C-alpha cells in the first residue's frame, strides 16, 4: 500500500517535470530541431537554392566532395587557427586577470567593470571601431610603430594573412577577455574561505595557495569557460564576415561558418552548405563531450 502511494507520487512528479519542460520544448521543436533535421536531410541532396527542380539525392556525395576540397580544408584550418589562437589566450589571461584582481584590496569592482565594458558593444560596432583602428593610417600602425621604435611602417593589419588572422583574434580577445574574467572572479569568490585559511595555517605561500587550492577548485569554472569559449570560437562569424566585406582578403579568415554562409547564399549550394554544417556540428559535439569526459575523470569537490 505504502509502496503504491509512493509510486503514484513519483508519477505525479514526473508529470510535473514534463509540464515544466513542455513550453520550451515546443519552441525547441519548431525553431531548433526542425531546422537542424532539415539541414541534416539536405546534406544528402544536391540542390540549387534558386532552382525549382526538386532536390537530387546524392547520398554521401557532398561529404565526399568536402573531404577532397582544398577550400574546405583551408577553412577547417582557419577555424582551428582562430579557435586555438583565441581559446588559449582568453582562458589563460582571463584566469590571470581574475586571480590578480582578487588579490587586490582596492578597485576590485572598477577593474572588473572596466575590463567587461567591451562586452556591452555589439559586434557590428566592434568591427566598425576596429576597422578604423586597423586602417593603414589608423591607431594600430601608430601604436606598433611607437612600440617597435620604427616609423611609418605599415604592419598590414588587414592585408597580410598572418596579421589579418591576428587582427580577428585581437578583436575577439578584446571583446570577451573581461567577460570571462568576471566569470572567473565569481568562481574564485565561490571557494570557501576556510580552505584558504587552512592552507595558510599549513604554512603555504600565496603561490602555493593558488596552485593547490584555488586552481584545482576552479576546475568547474575553467571547464565551463573553456567549453563556452571553444563553442563560441568555432561558431565565430560576424567579425570575419564584416572584415571580409570591408576590404580584407577572405581566404585567411574564411572560417567554416563564413564558408557555409557563402556556399549557401552566394553559391546557392544548400546541400554542400548543409553538409559543412553537419560536420561542424559533429566536431563541436565531440570536442564538448571530450572536455566533459576529461573533467569528470578528475572530478574535484569542495567537500
Amino acid at each position: 500500500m505504502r509502496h503504491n502511494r509512493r509510486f503514484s507520487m513519483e508519477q505525479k512528479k514526473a508529470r510535473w517535470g514534463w509540464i515544466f519542460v513542455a513550453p520550451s520544448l515546443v519552441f525547441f521543436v519548431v525553431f531548433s530541431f526542425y531546422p537542424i533535421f532539415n539541414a541534416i536531410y539536405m546534406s544528402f541532396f544536391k540542390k540549387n537554392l534558386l532552382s525549382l527542380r526538386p532536390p537530387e539525392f546524392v547520398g554521401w556525395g557532398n561529404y565526399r566532395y568536402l573531404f577532397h576540397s582544398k577550400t574546405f580544408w583551408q577553412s577547417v584550418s582557419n577555424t582551428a587557427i582562430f579557435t586555438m589562437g583565441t581559446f588559449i589566450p582568453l582562458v589563460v589571461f582571463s584566469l590571470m586577470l581574475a586571480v590578480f584582481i582578487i588579490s587586490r584590496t582596492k578597485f576590485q569592482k572598477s577593474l572588473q567593470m572596466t575590463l567587461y565594458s567591451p562586452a556591452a558593444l555589439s559586434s557590428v560596432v566592434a568591427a566598425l571601431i576596429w576597422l578604423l583602428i586597423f586602417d593603414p593610417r589608423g591607431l594600430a600602425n601608430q601604436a606598433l610603430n611607437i612600440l617597435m621604435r620604427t616609423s611609418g611602417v605599415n604592419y598590414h593589419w588587414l592585408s597580410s594573412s598572418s596579421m589579418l588572422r591576428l587582427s580577428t583574434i585581437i578583436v575577439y580577445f578584446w571583446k570577451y577577455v573581461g567577460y570571462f574574467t568576471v566569470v572567473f572572479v565569481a568562481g574564485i569568490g565561490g571557494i570557501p574561505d576556510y580552505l584558504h585559511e587552512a592552507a595558510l595555517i599549513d604554512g603555504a605561500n600565496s603561490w602555493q595557495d593558488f596552485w593547490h587550492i584555488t586552481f584545482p577548485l576552479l576546475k568547474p569554472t575553467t571547464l565551463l569557460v573553456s567549453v563556452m569559449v571553444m563553442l563560441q570560437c568555432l561558431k565565430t562569424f560576424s567579425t570575419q564576415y564584416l572584415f571580409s566585406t570591408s576590404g580584407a582578403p577572405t581566404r585567411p579568415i574564411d572560417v567554416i561558418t563564413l564558408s557555409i554562409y557563402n556556399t549557401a547564399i552566394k553559391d546557392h549550394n544548400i546541400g554542400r552548405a548543409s553538409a559543412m554544417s553537419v560536420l561542424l556540428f559533429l566536431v563541436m559535439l565531440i570536442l564538448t563531450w571530450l572536455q566533459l569526459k576529461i573533467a569528470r575523470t578528475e572530478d574535484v569537490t569542495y567537500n
Partner: protein
Amino acid sequence: MNATELRTSLPGKLVNILIWLFLAVACVFVVTPLLFMFSASFMPAIDIMKLPYPWVSDHIHWQNYWNALRGPDGSFIFLRNTLNSLIVALAVTVTTVILSSLSGYGLAKFRFKGRNAVFMLIMATMMIPFETIMIPLYMVTMKMGLQDSYAGLILPFLTNAFGVFLMRQFLLTFPDEVLDAARIDGASEPRIFTHIVLPNSGPAIATLAILTFRSQWDNLLWPLLVVQSDEMKTIPLYITRFMAETHSDEGIMMAVAAMASLPMFILFFTMSKYFISTEGLHSTIKG
C-alpha cells in the same frame, strides 16, 4: 589570501607593482578602442585619418551626433529603431528567463522518463551555428506569416539552450528539503515554482537576463532577413545601413556607434551589481 604578507617583503613589493602594471596595461588595451570611438565621434572625418591621431579635435563636432540621429534620409528613424531593439530584446529576455527557468527547474528537480534525452537534445542545439539553420528557420517563420513583425523577430529566440543549461545547473544546487517542505504544506507545483524557486534564483536570472539582452541587442543576421520596412529595423540594421551609405563619414559612423552602445552601457552599469560580485555566479557553475 595572504596578500598582506606578500606586500610587506621586498620581492613581494616588486610583485605587487608588477601585478598593478599588468592590470593597468590590460585596462589600457581594453579601454583605448572605446575612447577612440567616443573621441572620433566628436571629430570631422578629416581629423580622424590624420597622422598621428589627434585624440581631441580643435572644435567639438556636435554635428556628427545630429546627423547620426537624423539618419541618412532625415527621417529620425533611429529613435524608432532603438525602440524596436528595446522591445525585441526585452521581450526575448523576459520570455527566455521564464521558459528557461521553467524547463531548467523541470530538468533539475524532477525525475521523468526521457529527462536525460531531452536535456541532451537541448544541449546539442547549442552546437549549431546559426548560419546553418538560417534558411530552414526562415522558411518556418515565413510559413507562419511572421515577416516584418515583432513576432518574427522574437519567436525564434524564445528558448536558448544555454539558458536552460544555466538554470538547470543553478537549480541542481537548490535544496530539496525546502521544496519537499512546501509540498507537505500542500503548495501546488506551480505555486512552488513562482513563490519559492523563482524568488530565490535572483543571481542566475540576472546573469541569464543580461546575457540574453546583450545577444539580442547584437543580433544582426536574423533581423536582416526578417525585417523589410525601415520602421521595423533594429539598431544593428540601422548601423549597417549607415555603413552602406557611401557619403556617410567616419565621424558620423562613430557617433552612430556610440549612440547605439549607450543603452547597453547604461544597462550594464546599473545592473553590474548582479553579475560583478564575488558570489553571483559561482553556484551556477559547480555541478
